[in-house]
């Protein structure tokens, strides 16, 4: 049975992509991505699945402004300047020459986040992601992989982004750390009413975290847009894996993905 249990539902769109085209070459007649459209609401998490090389990460890079499209439009909260974006990569991007605190202070230095606001947000995020204040004076190399990825997420969140882009952020972590971090991340997105686009190869992760799963076909267009909802009040990425509907979703998504892979 599939119904909505989202805490936040609003018609307001966080991200809108329309008619997007992208090519690595100057020749616009050979686009890697062609006529892409997508919208993500505030408080919604979307996962993107697809074969390697179908343009999943390229899509995130285009949204983040790291690549320039040859046609089409991307707007975030109706603002085309795209300043309110956080991007979390598979590998953390903590600078080894800065302490954890100095890495997190980039929001103040670059994002011009006022000190008091930064301080309050920092304390809140450290407790949400179960990190102790003691790590602030440490260097990233002194932390475990899971801790570094948590700090990396906090670093992006301190910029107060309305949209978060995640490129396989949990794939390098061990299973237990991954489950815990997924839960922390999910609750943060829902509590704070952000939008998130997650690129992953893991169907379970996609179902556990997302409100919608998008499957891309080999030329980068959307093959399926599947709504993932549960008859379960306290949705949590960890416990949701044991619910019967989880299996239903898994079978449906796997069937679609298999069809794309065999194309």
């Amino acid at each position, binding site marked *: 049975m599939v119904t909505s249990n989202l805490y936040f539902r609003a018609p307001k769109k966080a991200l809108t992509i329309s008619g997007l085209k992208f090519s690595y070459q100057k020749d616009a007649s050979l686009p890697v991505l062609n006529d892409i459209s997508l919208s993500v609401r505030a408080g919604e998490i979307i996962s993107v699945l697809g074969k390697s090389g179908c343009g999943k990460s390229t899509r995130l890079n285009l949204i*983040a*402004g*790291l690549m320039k499209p040859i046609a089409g439009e991307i707007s975030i909260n109706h603002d085309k300047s795209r*300043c309110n*974006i*956080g*991007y979390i*990569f598979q*590998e953390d*991007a903590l*600078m*080894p*020459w*800065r*302490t954890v605190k100095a890495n997190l202070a*980039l929001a103040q*230095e*670059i*994002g011009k986040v006022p000190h008091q606001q930064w301080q309050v947000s920092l304390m809140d995020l450290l407790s949400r992601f179960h990190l102790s204040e003691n*790590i602030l004076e*440490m*260097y990233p*190399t*002194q*932390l*475990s992989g899971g*801790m570094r990825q948590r700090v990396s997420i906090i670093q992006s969140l301190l*910029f107060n982004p309305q949209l978060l882009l995640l490129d396989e952020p949990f794939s390098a972590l061990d299973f237990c750390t991954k489950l815990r971090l997924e839960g922390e991340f999910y609750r943060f997105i829902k509590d704070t009413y952000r939008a998130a686009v997650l690129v992953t190869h893991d169907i379970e992760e996609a179902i556990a975290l997302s409100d919608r799963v998008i499957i891309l076909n080999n030329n980068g267009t959307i093959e399926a847009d599947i709504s993932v909802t549960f008859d379960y009040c306290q949705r949590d990425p960890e416990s949701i894996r044991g619910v019967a509907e989880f299996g239903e979703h898994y079978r449906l998504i796997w069937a679609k993905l298999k069809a794309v892979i065999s194309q």
Partner: protein
Amino acid sequence: MKNLNSPRTVAAVQSQRAVTMMLYPVPLIVFLVAWQLYTISDSQRQFIFSSPEKVYSAFTTLIVSGDLVRHSAVTLMEALTGFVLGTTCGAVIGLSLWYSRLVSTVAKPYITALGSIPIFALAPMIIAWFGIGIVSKIALAFLSTVVVAIVQSYQGAMSAEPRFLRLMQVFGASRLQTFRTVILPSSLIWVVNAMKLNIGLALLGAFIGEFISAEQGLGYMIVRASGLYDMATVIAGVFTLVVLALLLTSVVEQIERRLLPWRSN
């Protein structure tokens, strides 16, 4: 969290350090003993290779007369000034090249050309322009070090990790902020490496200048002694140069610890 401060780890590191400290003088002692044994009963060998005993005696004479300190101070001053100027200018130029791909492309063949000229070939010209005083030796030490610093710091700037640059781009950082936050700190390792290489090169530059034409300095002292077949003084001069190089290297290592504290963590 990795526990690098556990008593067992600290004790292991300390005992390894003690062993290393004890092993440091061993090759030198073996060399001195072999040298002494080879030359002890042969006056011809002593004339050609000198001996540890004669070198020690030459050292004592040079120290008592004040010549060693005077010549060393001159060479050290020339090398150090050239080193500081060359490394600083080189690092500033190398890092600035990151700002413009066009300028760096245009500058590249000139830097390569400058780097390929043996400093010995430039020495007569520099001495003709700046005279036989310390300025020409500083200029030679500068020229010996500046190219290495340019190449190393430019390489450092260009090899900044793409994930950090991408992060700065996502955060909307300006080019200056990216330079300050990513390029400069990630180039520091390369600049420190340039400093390590440049110590020897600065001493070489100053020494070549003194070797060709000078009135003071270790190069001058060695040339004069070799003209008199005074091998003990020549070797004493060479040892002093080695000591100066080791001294400067340890200073650079201190600077490295200050500039890159995260590496020792």
